C-alpha cells in the first residue's frame, strides 16, 4: 500500500526493499494485534535468571501466566516489555519495547534508523517528522505501541535503488540546509506539504512548513527546493 503511493509520488515502480534482517531483529508477518497490550506472558531472561538463583522459576512462570489471564486488570504492574509489530519503510518489524518508548526512540535506538532526529523531543521543532499512513506526524509524540498496524515512512525509505526522491534531490540542488540536522524532518514534512496541496505558493509553503525549525535559517532555499520538487512530484503523479 505504501509502495503504491510512493510509486505514485516518485513515478517509478513500486518501492521495494530486500527483506533482510536488520540489527539482529527477527521480522515476520504482522500478527493481528490483540486489544490489550500486556507485558509478555512468558518468562523473560531476567525472570529466569533471577528464578534460577532463588530456585523459584516455577512460581515466576505461574505468576506470568496469571497476569496474562487478567488481561484487562489495570492493577497489573505494567513494568515489562511488550511485543509490538510495525511496518516501517515497507518492512515488518517485530520488536519488544518498553511501553513508554516513543516511535522516534524506537526508530533511532532500536532499529538503527537514525535519519529522524531528536531535536526538542516535545513536538516543537519538527526534526523527528515521519509519515504515518502518508501523513506527516511527529514521531517524538507518537508512542511506538500506538503506531502498531500503521505504515511508517522515514527518510531512509525515500530513495529507490540509490535514486533520490525528488524532494531529496531538490534540497541538494538548492543547498537547502547548512548543518543538516533538521533536514530529514524538513524533507519528510515537505513531501507531506506537497501531497496535501499546501505548497501552491510561497506563502502557503512558509505557513505549512512552519512546524519545521531550521536554526541555520535556510528557509528561502527550502522554499525553492519545495517548489522544484512540487513540479516533479506533480509530473510523476500524472504519468
Amino acid at each position, binding site marked *: 500500500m505504501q509502495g503504491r503511493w510512493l510509486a505514485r509520488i516518485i513515478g517509478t515502480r513500486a518501492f521495494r526493499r530486500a527483506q533482510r534482517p536488520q540489527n539482529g531483529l527477527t521480522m515476520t508477518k504482522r500478527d493481528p494485534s490483540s*486489544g490489550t497490550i500486556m507485558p509478555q506472558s512468558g518468562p523473560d531472561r531476567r525472570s529466569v535468571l533471577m528464578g534460577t538463583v532463588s530456585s523459584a522459576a516455577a512460581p515466576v512462570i505461574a505468576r506470568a501466566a496469571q497476569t496474562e489471564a487478567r488481561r*484487562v486488570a489495570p492493577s497489573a504492574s505494567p513494568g515489562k516489555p*511488550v511485543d509490538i509489530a510495525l511496518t516501517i519503510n515497507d518492512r515488518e518489524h517485530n520488536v519488544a519495547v518498553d*511501553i513508554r518508548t516513543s516511535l522516534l526512540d524506537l526508530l533511532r535506538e532500536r532499529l538503527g534508523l537514525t535519519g529522524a532526529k531528536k531535536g526538542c523531543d*516535545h*513536538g516543537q521543532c519538527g526534526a523527528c517528522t515521519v509519515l504515518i499512513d502518508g501523513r506527516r506526524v511527529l514521531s517524538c509524540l507518537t508512542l511506538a505501541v500506538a503506531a502498531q498496524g500503521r505504515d511508517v515512512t522515514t527518510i531512509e525509505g525515500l530513495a529507490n535503488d540509490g535514486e533520490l526522491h525528488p524532494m531529496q534531490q531538490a534540497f541538494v540542488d538548492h543547498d537547502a540546509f547548512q548543518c543538516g540536522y533538521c533536514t530529514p524532518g524538513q524533507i519528510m514534512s515537505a513531501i507531506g506539504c506537497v501531497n496535501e496541496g499546501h505548497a501552491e505558493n510561497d506563502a502557503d509553503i512558509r505557513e505549512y512548513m*512552519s*512546524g519545521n525549525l531550521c536554526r541555520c535559517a535556510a528557509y528561502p532555499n527550502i522554499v525553492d527546493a519545495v517548489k522544484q520538487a512540487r513540479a516533479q512530484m506533480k509530473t510523476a503523479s500524472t504519468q
Partner: protein
Amino acid sequence: MRTFLYQRAREPNEAVQLAAAANPASARSRNKVEYLAGGTTLTDLMKLDVAQPDVIIDINPLTETGHGRIELSQRGLRLGALVRMAEAADHSGIRSQYPVVAQSLSQAASQQLRNMASLGGNVLQRTRCTYFRDVSYSECNKRNPGSGCAALTGFNRMHAVLGGSDQCIATYPGDFAQALIALEAAVEIAGRGGSRTIPFANLHRKPGDTPDQETSLRPGEIITSFLIPAAPWTRRSLYLKVRDRQSYEFALASAAVALDQQDGIVRTARIALGGLATVPWRAVEAEAFLRAASLSMSKTLPQRQAPPSPAPKAMATTTSRSNLASAL
C-alpha cells in the same frame, strides 16, 4: 516518563467500559485513566511528568467509526471527536459554510500536530502556563492543589486577564474552542451510564478555588462529537489571531466573530475571545454593542470591562476592532 498500562478500544462503547474497569468499585486506590487520541498534549505532559496516568486507553481505532466522521447537513455541522484538526481545517464544506471553524483550526499549531491532534483532544488541551508545565516549580494549584500559584507574581505576560482567580491565572490556550463557543455548539459526551449532550459553554470551568478541575466531564467520560447548529451568521465568520510569531504560536489575543447582517445593519453578532481568559470566552457585551449597529471602518468598541490588568487588555480591544473591520 512513568510506566502505565496500555489498552486499546476498538468499539465505541469499549472505551468507557475499559475506563470503568480500570476503577472497579472494590478497588482501594483510584487509577488515573487517560484516553489517548493524537497524544500531542498527553505524551508531551507525560514526558514532563506533569501527567501521570496509570492506565492509557488508546481510542484511535475508533477513528474508523462515527467518532471520526464529519457530517454537514441543513441542520448543522457534526464533528466527530476523533476527526483530526487538519482534516476539518481542509474540509471544503467547513471552509465555505463555517469559515471561523476552519480558520481557528488552521491557525493553530503546525501541520504535523494538526494531522495528529483530534478535535476532542484539542478542546481539552492543557494550559501552556510555564509554572504548570515545569514540575521544578513547586507552586501550582492546577498540578498540586493547595500549593499556590507561582504565576501570580511570576512571568505572566501571556496569562489570563479574564476569568482568573487568586488561585490560578493560567490561560486556556486553544483556538477551536472560541469558534465553538461563539457558534453555540453542543458537545456529545459518552459515559458509563449512557450519553448526554451539554452546551459547549458548560464544558470548561473557571479555576475559582479548584483550578485542578478544568472541565465538567465526570471520571471516565469521553467527548464523542461536537454539534454546531446551522445559522445565518456561520458563513460570515472569521477567526483572527494576534501572536508573537506569524505562524505556529499561541494567541496573545484572538477573536472568533460571526455576523448576520442585513442592509448593513447587524442583526446578530457572535464573538468569542481567545488567549485572554482561563476558559473559552464569549464576549456578550461586545455582541450586544454590535446588535442593530451599522458597521463601518470607524466603528470601535468601547473599552472592555476587563479587570485592571496590563497589556493584554488593550490587545483584546485592538483585536476585536480589527476583526470587525475585516468582517465587513
